[in-house]
Each structure stands twice: as structure tokens, then as C-alpha cells.
């Protein structure tokens, strides 16, 4: 369980990182390393160069201006979980960040790392899809912005080009209103067997599921039935179309349960 040989570069700015990334083939960005390092130790990932982003100054900031959140990608899950602005204006994001792994993992793992890694069972990519966030991708070619909903393409697969770095995340604070979250995992801190972000408005509903497909699964509906049985039947019927990677029957069942639980949480909070 030792990685294959690799070179290591520590950069001080995003520009340096972008330059290094375009210079070397088979390079990988190292942020918190909570997924990459185990993959390297299993030799499932064998980058020849590791570009360490941890030395980039102010790569972990959060700001809120005119309803727009800007979060730089280097923020750790624990910082996101504890950040006063996030807690106050995007509480669902703070809450789900606290469900990522255990404290030690949250202290190192970063938002950008999690979003780019695109594990289908992780909370943060789904949260960004639910929030309709924009990702800023930086390379020597410049910057481009892509929506979270377009960013995810499949299992561990994203729109991120080989030479691009996910550097900033934007979303509207107001879009975080009325989104509620629930998940089920075997043990606290495990990847979710199934999780859901549910946003309930007067006339429309949005559900973003994770853990039950190869990537966050987002859909928009009309208003949900208020009557419990009808609503659960709707969730069950929607979940029956999901294609989980394993334990199909069980995960579909859980998908309906977490959607209902997230919905009920919202109703309690909004009541």
C-alpha cells in the first residue's frame, strides 16, 4: 500500500498551479488528499507529478455580497461546516458539510477536491447541484464558468479539462432558502447509501438525490401533494426510475425515505 513514484510540486498561487498543470502530463492536483492519497496508495491512481495546492494563500475564503456567495475551493469541510456566513445564509450547506466523513477527514478534505472528485455518494456535489451553483474553472487558457448541473457527467466524471482547476464556487444565498437535506449511511461519517436535497416552493419542487445514481440526480416537479400517502407514493415512483450502482431495490427504497424526510424537515422549519 505504497504509491508509485511521483514528483511533488508545491505552488503558492493559482497561476503557478495552472502553469504546472499545463506543463506536466499525468499531473494531479493535491488539496486535502482524502480521496487521492488512498487511491495512490492502492496504485489505482499513478500521477507522475503531484501539484500541492495547500500553499496557495487565501484559497479558503467565503464572502457574501449582494446575495452572491463566493467560496474559494480550498476551504475545508469543517471550515465550511462552521463558517458563520454559511451557517446564517446557507444553513443546508453547513449542515451537509458536517456529514462528510469524520472530523479528521473534514479538517483536511476540501470543497474543491470533493466537487472535482465527483463521488456519486458524496454530499457536496449534490448540494451544489441543488443550489444551482456556478463553478469557476481556471487554466492557462483563462477562466470559464460552468453550472454544477452541467459539470457532472457521470461516475467520477466531470466537465473539468485536464489543465483546469476548480477555483471558485458561486451561488445565490436566496437559492439556499427552502432547501432541506436528509441522508442515510451505515455508520455516521460513511458515504451515504442515499441522500436527498429537497426544495419546496409554493408551486414547484426540486429534488437532488445522491448515492443512488452515477452522479447527482436532479429533477424539478410541480408542487408536492400535501397528503402523506400520495406524496410518498410520488417519491416511491420517482425513485423507482433511479439506477443505483448496487443494492438497487434497497437504495431506491431509501431514496424515497430520504426525500420524504428532507421534505418533512423543511415543513417543520418553515412552519
Amino acid at each position, binding site marked *: *500500500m*505504497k*504509491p*508509485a*513514484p511521483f514528483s511533488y510540486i508545491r505552488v503558492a498561487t493559482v497561476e503557478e498551479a495552472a502553469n504546472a498543470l499545463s506543463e506536466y502530463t499525468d499531473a494531479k492536483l493535491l488539496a486535502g488528499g482524502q480521496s487521492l492519497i488512498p487511491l495512490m496508495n*492502492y*496504485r489505482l491512481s499513478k500521477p507522475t507529478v503531484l501539484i500541492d495546492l495547500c500553499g496557495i494563500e487565501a484559497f479558503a475564503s467565503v464572502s457574501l455580497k449582494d446575495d452572491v456567495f463566493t467560496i474559494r475551493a480550498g476551504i475545508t469541510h469543517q471550515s465550511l461546516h462552521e463558517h458563520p456566513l454559511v451557517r446564517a445564509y446557507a444553513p443546508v450547506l453547513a449542515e451537509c458539510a458536517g456529514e462528510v466523513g469524520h472530523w479528521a477527514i473534514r479538517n483536511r478534505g476540501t470543497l474543491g477536491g470533493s466537487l472535482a472528485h465527483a463521488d456519486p455518494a458524496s454530499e457536496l456535489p449534490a448540494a451544489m447541484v441543488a443550489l444551482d451553483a456556478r463553478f469557476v474553472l481556471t487554466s492557462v487558457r483563462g477562466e470559464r464558468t460552468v453550472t454544477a448541473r452541467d459539470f457532472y457527467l457521470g461516475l467520477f466524471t466531470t466537465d473539468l479539462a485536464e489543465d483546469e482547476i476548480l477555483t471558485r464556487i458561486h451561488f445565490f444565498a436566496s437559492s439556499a432558502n427552502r432547501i432541506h437535506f436528509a441522508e*442515510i449511511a*451505515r*455508520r*455516521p*461519517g*460513511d*458515504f451515504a*447509501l442515499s441522500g436527498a436535497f429537497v426544495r419546496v416552493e409554493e408551486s414547484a419542487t426540486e429534488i437532488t438525490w445522491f448515492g443512488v445514481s452515477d452522479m447527482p440526480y436532479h429533477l424539478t416537479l410541480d408542487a408536492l401533494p400535501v397528503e402523506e400517502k400520495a406524496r410518498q407514493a410520488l417519491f416511491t415512483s420517482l425513485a423507482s426510475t433511479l439506477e443505483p450502482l448496487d*443494492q438497487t*431495490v*434497497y437504495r431506491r*427504497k*431509501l431514496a424515497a*425515505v430520504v426525500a420524504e424526510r428532507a421534505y418533512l424537515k423543511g415543513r417543520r422549519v418553515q412552519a
Partner: protein
Amino acid sequence: MSDALHHLQKNALKPKYTGARVTRKEDARLLTGASRYLDDIEIPGMYEIAFVRSQRSAARICAIHLDAAQATPGVKRILTAKECPCFFGSAEDVANGVVQPALARDVVRYVGEPIVAIIAETRYAAEDAVERVQIDYEPLQPVLAMRESLLDQPRRVHEKTPNRMFHSEYQTSGFEDAFQAAPHHLVEVFQTHRQTGVPLETRGLAATIDPGSGRLTIYATHQSPHGLRGDMAVALGIEENELRVIVPEVGGAFGIKAHAYPEYLVVAYAALKYKLPVKWISDRTECLLTDVHARDDIHEVEVAFEGNGRILAIRDHLRADAGAYSAFPFCGAIGETVLASRVLTGPYTIPHLATTIDCTYSNKTPLGAYRGVWGPIASFVQEGIVDRVARALHLDPVEVRRVNMIPDELFPYTNAAGQAYDRGSYRASLEKALEMLNYDELRAQQKTLRDHGKYIGIGISAFVEPTAMAQSEAGSVPYESATIRIEPNGSVTAAFGLGPSGQGHETTMAQLIADELGVDLKDIVVLHGDTDSAPFGGGTGGSRSGPIGGGAALKAGRAMKEKLQTLASHLLEAAKEDVQLEDGKAFVAGVPTRNFSIRELAQVAYTDVLRLPEDFPVGLEVVARYQPKRPVTFSNGTHIAVVEVDAQTGMIEVLDYVVVNDCGRLINPLIVEGQIQGGVAQGLGSAYLEELRYDDQGQVTTTTLADYLLPVATEVPRMRIAHLETPSSGEGGFKGMGEGSLIASPAAFANAVSDALEPFAFMVSALPVTPDQILAAIDRSRDSMA
């Protein structure tokens, strides 16, 4: 204050260590990270080994291509079966004409079996080379299912040997008549799936030739230093005195480290043959793949019982999957089944028993010892039977236990398999646990909650725990040894042949000796783990260290006390029987001012030797051995788990957990409770989480701790523990207790889930029971009701 009162109070405060909540001497170093484990051993110029392991469960090896590996920078040597012709053969395998080569020769028989050993300057370089070894296989059909294997289907694992590697039958006289005559019968198949101990510190070995003596020195993380020395010497073809085994701090062992493994032979052989210091430390994937597996058993059970819940007879066909070889030197499949068959009736007066045992080879990892060995399986079956009888008769599970529990007046009691139980607190432990739980009230609450869609379950597990056996995974050494030396400055050094891995022997053995010698605990050093300094012993395993090692400590302590009394009586010119030892002094009873300190006595014994009495040997050293008269010492107790099952998700939450434990006289309740907490945690894993899964090609699919789920701190319940003390007839009155908590707890957790799901007519019959299984069972029940 009157003198009398003062004297009384002084006596009340007299340090009496045995039975006291003494904090562990080991804790400071363990908790501050100052302990030195195997991987902390640094020998200058030491090489590391990495293994190329079989990726097939069954195949012929056609060719091994080593050129690219050989050319890898840092590689020193590469070994295959040709270069390293060693093997281990357990008694069971040898009887079947089978031995396990250190490195697979011609055929591979399980995924993870070592084939090639790469010796390199670093583990990194060794693993680089491992990647470059190419092996050509000709696949064979894997043998994976016990029932088929028994019929030699689809083929034999070892060409010349039938797959059935062990068979036995047993029946009480009059069984058939008693079974047939019973008014009620039920059948069930119980199954436990593969698990393993997963010690925090993985296993491994380092070996070097001691340049001074030319002897081979082995550093091992192991439970039986002397046992390993003997086994390695035989396998390497050297004499035991040419081999020194040193066991540094061991970070958990759980039976897994009672075994010797093929990798150990390769490491030691390489050191011996090439005169290289070498080391191999298992990584976590190797741990899950190749540490001995355990608990791969099927019990097909038939039960005969009366209308009041009295159980008359149990018939059980026990099967276990031994894996490709018997683990060395202890075959887990035989251990799990044979020993389970002897305690299958648990704490109950079930008069009739018939057992058939079949153990079979397969293309899986060898099955070996994991804490509790047969006990968790036997308890799961036995307590599962009791709950099924209760459900069949609509009786409270407690009532069925009361009807069947061995009454106090029947002790010493011989069970249907011929096992002689010690006197215990069988009924008392059950009643005490029920009282701690407020059982009747909880049952009433359970009913109310069910009406609100909340499913609470109460799982009872009354257990017997065979301990301190003459034979166990710690070998066939039915005694333990202790040496005590009082040093010239009066401090005490004791040495044992035990192999602790966190049990706190440095504290408990010191407690016993301190009380015998009347010295302070801090003045005692307990040594273990070096065959050059420790007296020969069996090591740690099978819950033997407390009762047998503790007995040796008491005997040695008494022998030393006698020496000190003899010496002091001579110097004090007092009768020997009037000399008392207390507070580090020997004094004349009633005249504490007439005294010699132990330090002064030691000075006389070592330096001022002209003052010694005639015939008193110079120095202060004793060795004592203790062999219990009983072949087994039985502990007992009751566990009760209270859980809530979420009927929407199948997830289980433990709400409460009570333990009443009786391990005879307590040496240190704090350490006993630590053992219980750890065992219950492992029981939670056994019942709900842990499973080594194989696919249909014999690949282990749970090779990381993301797939093999261990209980973590967030799930292990706070437990309430009470002690009862029914002393054994052995030295000190101690009984073993290292495994009872893991023997009892899986059954308690399983029964709690069964109880919670009574409205859905579900009972747990396979462990671990998982949320998806629970939800599927609830659905089946709802469908059938609809």
C-alpha cells in the same frame, strides 16, 4: 481519635491491590504514543519485503516472469517457492497429507496466497517490483460452497485429499426416543459469515542474525513468544536455542496473532539464508485478505421441546469452511465446530444433544482463531433456539430461560456434551440483568411504542464462557510460569511467558505479586515477550492469562514471600510465622518497629551475604508454575441489548446495553470492564456490520475498511456493567473473561433485532444482519399480510 479507631482506619486504607480499580501501568506509554511496536524496530541496513499474491482463488501457476521486477531499482533479492522451500503443516493438515508452502508452489489455492517475495531497500521499491511481476495462470474451478465441497464438488482443493478434512459425530444415549417423544419441534438453519479480528496494529515479522551470537533474532507481533519460537525452529530446521523471539508492544491480537503465517517463514528464512535484516509488515488489504478468517459456519438445527418451554433435545449438523489450508498451528474450522458442539446447550439443562460435524477445504483464506472462536457462534445458535421456542409457544423469552436455566443446586453441572461447569451465578446473573434493565416496564413500553410505529427490541443472551483450557489457540501448554527476582535494591522484577496485547498484564500480575509481598505496585516491573528472559509459557489466548498466569503469579509470590519471611525471621530472631510483610517491610506481628525493609533484606541477600541463614541461597529468585486441576474453567453472565429498528430504512440503533458478568474473583474491575466494552464493540460489529464477502470467483470484495465495516466510537453504546463473583476452585478463585463479552453480545444484538421485528414474523438466522435484509424481510411480511 482513639488508638483503636486509628488502627482500624489505617487497616481499612491498607493498600490491597487485588480486586481494586487500579489504573494500568501501561496506559501512560500507550496513550502518549511512546510505545514501541514491531514497525518501530530499526535495524541498520534493514530491508523490507513485499509479496506478490495470488489474484486467483484456484489456478495452476504456469510461469512466473521476474525479469522486470529484478531490474527495479532498490531490489535486493527475489524469492519463489524454489528459493524458499519452507512449509507449515498443522496437525490436522498433516493428517490429511497436506502442508502449506511458505510460497505457493505450482498451484494457488486462495486469493492473497503469497507466491513471490521481493526483498528491497524500501517497501516502496518492493511494491514497485511487485507490480512488475507477471504470473501466467491456468484457471481451475474454485471450490467455494460448503455443501458442495463436502461432496468433493466441483473438485478437490487438494488433489489427493477429500475436501472433508474433519468429521465427527456425537449423541447422548436415548437421544432419538427423547427427540421423537417431544410434543413440539422446530427447525432452523443458522449461518455466520466470515469475519476477522482486524487488530489496530497489523501483523508482521522482522528477522536478523545477531552479529554477536550468530543466532537468529525474530521480532514478532504475536501472542505466544515461546510457541512461535518452537514452531519457527521446526519449520526452519534449526534448534530452539539458535532462535530468539522478541515481542515488542502488541497493538491488539484477538487470536489472529496466535497463528504463525507463511510470510513469517519467508522473512525468517531470508534473514537466515542471506544474512540480511529484513522486515515485513502487513498492510490493511493484506490484513483483510490473509489474516486468518473466522466464523464461516452453518448450523442445521432441530429442536424438541415441551409446551412450557422446556427444551428436551437439540440436533445440530455443524459445518465450517476451513479455507484452503488449516491455519497454523490451530485449525479454526475444527475449533469453531468441535468446541461449539460442547457448549451448545449453554447455561441450560437440556438433557439431549446430537451433533454431526463436517469441516471442508475450500478456495478461501484459512480459517483460524478470532476472539471467542466457537463461542459467538454457539451462543448465537443456543440463544436463537431459546427465542424461537418462546415465539413458537407465545411465551416471554425470559420465562423460557427461567424454565431451562441450570438451577444452583445442580452445580457442579455436567452438560449434555460432557462438559463440567464450575459453580456460577447463572440464575442470579439473569435476574440481576433484568432488574438493571427494569425489564417488565420496558416490555410494557415496547407495546405502546409499537402502536406508534416504533420498533424496540430486547435481546437477551445468557452465556457460558469456557476459559483457561488445557488446550487452546495458545497451544497445548496447560500451565503458566512466573519468575520473581528481588533486585539488590529491593525492587521486584517478575517475568512471564504470557503474550499480552493490551490486556494489562503488567498491572494485574503486579497487583497479585504486590499483595503477596506487601510492596508498592510501582516497585514491581513485569517482563514478558522475550524468550531469552521470560520463563517458558503458553502465551496469551483462550482467556487463560488471568486464571493460569495469575495462578502462577500467586504461587511465585507466595514462594518469594516465604523466602523473605525466612530471611527476616533469622535477622529479627523471631518465629517465621510471626513475620508479616507490609508497606515494603518485614516486621514482627504486633511489633511493627522490629522490622527490616525489603531493601535491607535484599542487601543482605546479595551483598551482606555472611548474615544469611545457613542453607539460604544467595540472592532472591524464585520460579513457579501453575497448572489448574480443571481442564476448563467456566465463567458465566447475561447480556441484554435494547435496540430500535427503523422500519423504513432497516437501520438499527442501540438504545441500552446491560452486562452482568461473573468471572470469579476479580483482579481488577477496571480492566475487566475494559475487556467487556471491547468485546461488546466487536459483538456489535459481528452482529450488524462485519463481513468478508466473496464473489462467485472466490475474490474477496471487502479488502478495505470502507467495505469491511468496523464498529466505530459513534455507534458503540454506553453499557452498564455489574459484577457477580463466584470464585473458581482454582488458584486465587479467578476465572477467565477475555472472550465472554464477544461470546454473548452477537446473540444479544441478534435477538434484539428479532424481538423488534416480531410484528413482521422475522428472526435473525444469519450474521451479520444488515439493513437491506431487514427491510426486505419487513416488505415480505407486509406483502404477505396484504
